[in-house]
């Protein structure tokens, strides 16, 4: 089942408490989320034998809620990829079509749910890594508002962008899992209690919001996130939005001019943060260590040559370049300007609309191997997901239909801590 799709890197069990809101639920955990005593590889040779001495806060919360962890899922190396093909443990296949990629970087998590091997899976979403595989595999993925879910125990890639989020076969189950993992954590200073945030809905009982009631909801439809998308994807998403209109929602065309620069801004910021974060992999305290006769710097460079795959090296080098003297203002500073512009565009849009709808991915799932040697092509597929991370907002990807058996995802974006609104809208898509 999940074995033929290579969804798991490690299949080991952590038993959950006897009862709780997730009693009897089988949960798969992305392999960049720490599990005490069970290796946590990040899909990398670098951490192939790394066994964390502690569990991430989200793992503890899941098991305390009764869930049983059934394994650690395959992923693009350190979360860097859109296809789960950059894993050192081989690609994951898409259960909807095994000749195609499951999306990434949380491809193993989405495939495990789609194949029925888990009821819930955790992914991490830095630029779309929960929503993309959810869309490609035909399941539901939630990227929470920045700060809603603790990242203590998540191996860092780009801290200012990433959130852990749930994947499940239906909106209600994903929402229930989100309630379990949400909330402040003294071990992660970036977490916030939504009830202490001005204007935010502090109630985190998200499953109750999956009531399918979109009567009176205003949906913004940004032209920029439809332009350039595959026609078949656009048709499928437009049909799902039209169906929400028949259920009482109204739609209005909006413009988000800044999002044309989101992919550039995202990659500059993510690569810059990655170049700093991944400096910790030096082969001394943990991780792979090359046999080297060289001095500290030579040994360090050889360890990292052997431990990292091509995409990780690419991002570390480009991030180092973007932060280096003479280029910082041109790349990093401009990317931060673009980020502020994206955030401002969304804020203005949410003055008039409740949610913003678009295709999650502008393309259908790639065939295996199709984009692996063309990094820029892979990056461009993140056009609709990266703006959400830049703006720190919550979003859901929900199945909108399919094209010749290939799943298409509808992305619904909400205002900060507006999880209930996007969950409610997504549940209405399911009912249609």
């Amino acid at each position: 089942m999940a074995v033929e799709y290579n969804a798991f890197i490690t299949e080991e069990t952590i038993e959950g408490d006897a009862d709780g809101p997730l009693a009897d639920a089988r949960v798969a955990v992305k392999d960049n989320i720490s599990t005490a005593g069970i290796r946590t590889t990040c899909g990398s040779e670098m951490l192939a034998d790394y066994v964390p001495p502690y569990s991430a806060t989200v793992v503890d919360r899941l098991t305390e809620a009764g869930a049983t962890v059934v394994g650690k899922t395959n992923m693009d190396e350190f979360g860097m990829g859109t296809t789960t093909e950059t894993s050192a443990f081989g690609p994951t296949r898409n259960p909807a079509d095994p000749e195609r990629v499951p999306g990434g970087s949380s491809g193993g998590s989405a495939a495990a749910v789609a194949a029925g091997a888990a009821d819930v899976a955790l992914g991490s979403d830095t630029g779309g890594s929960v929503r993309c595989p959810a869309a490609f595999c035909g399941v539901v993925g939630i990227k929470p508002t920045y700060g809603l879910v603790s990242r203590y125990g998540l191996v860092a890639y780009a801290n200012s962008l990433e959130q852990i989020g749930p994947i499940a076969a239906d909106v209600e189950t994903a929402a229930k899992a989100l309630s379990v993992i949400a909330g402040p954590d003294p071990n992660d200073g970036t977490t916030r209690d939504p009830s202490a945030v001005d204007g935010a809905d502090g109630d985190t009982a998200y499953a109750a919001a999956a009531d399918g009631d979109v009567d009176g909801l205003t949906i913004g439809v940004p032209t920029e996130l439809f332009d350039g998308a595959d026609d078949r994807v656009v048709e499928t998403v437009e049909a799902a939005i039209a169906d929400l209109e028949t259920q009482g929602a109204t739609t209005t065309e909006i413009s988000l001019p800044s999002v044309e620069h989101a992919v550039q801004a995202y990659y500059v910021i993510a690569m810059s943060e990655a170049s700093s974060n991944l400096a910790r992999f030096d082969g001394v305290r943990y991780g792979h260590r090359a046999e080297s006769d060289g001095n500290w710097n030579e040994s360090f460079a050889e360890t990292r040559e052997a431990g990292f795959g091509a995409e990780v090296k690419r991002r570390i080098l480009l991030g180092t370049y973007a932060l280096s003297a003479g280029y910082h203002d041109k790349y990093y500073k401009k990317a931060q300007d673009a980020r502020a512009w994206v955030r401002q565009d969304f804020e203005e849009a949410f003055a008039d609309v409740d949610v913003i709808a678009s295709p999650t991915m502008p393309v259908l799932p790639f065939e295996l191997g199709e984009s692996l040697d063309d990094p820029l092509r892979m990056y461009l597929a993140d056009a609709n997901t990266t703006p959400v991370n830049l703006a720190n907002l919550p979003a859901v990807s929900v199945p909108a239909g399919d094209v010749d058996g290939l799943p298409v995802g509808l992305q619904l974006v909400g205002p900060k801590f507006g999880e209930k609104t996007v969950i409610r809208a997504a549940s209405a898509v399911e009912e249609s």
Partner: protein
Amino acid sequence: MTDTSDPDADDAATGDAPAVDAAEVDHVAELARVRLDDAEREAFADQFAEILEYFEALDEVPALDREEELVNVMRADEVEEGLTQAEALANAAETEDGFFMGPKVS
């Protein structure tokens, strides 16, 4: 858009499309402490040129008055239970007398 008035300039900081050669890739790789083999160096030079050219479009982004609402999140500086020494050392390739062993410094 990018200023292309001086076609001879090859310094990306001046606003022209960056020229990336294998030597430049090597320099960045050295800064990042990642050794590359020859094939990787050549492939990266081509890919970096294409990716950095795409990043050029950031020049069109207007400068914004960015107001970050940032606050420091501190906790009291009190001793708390942490990992044991054995736990902290458990994943190290080489240890001695309770310390990490690194490669020689020079």
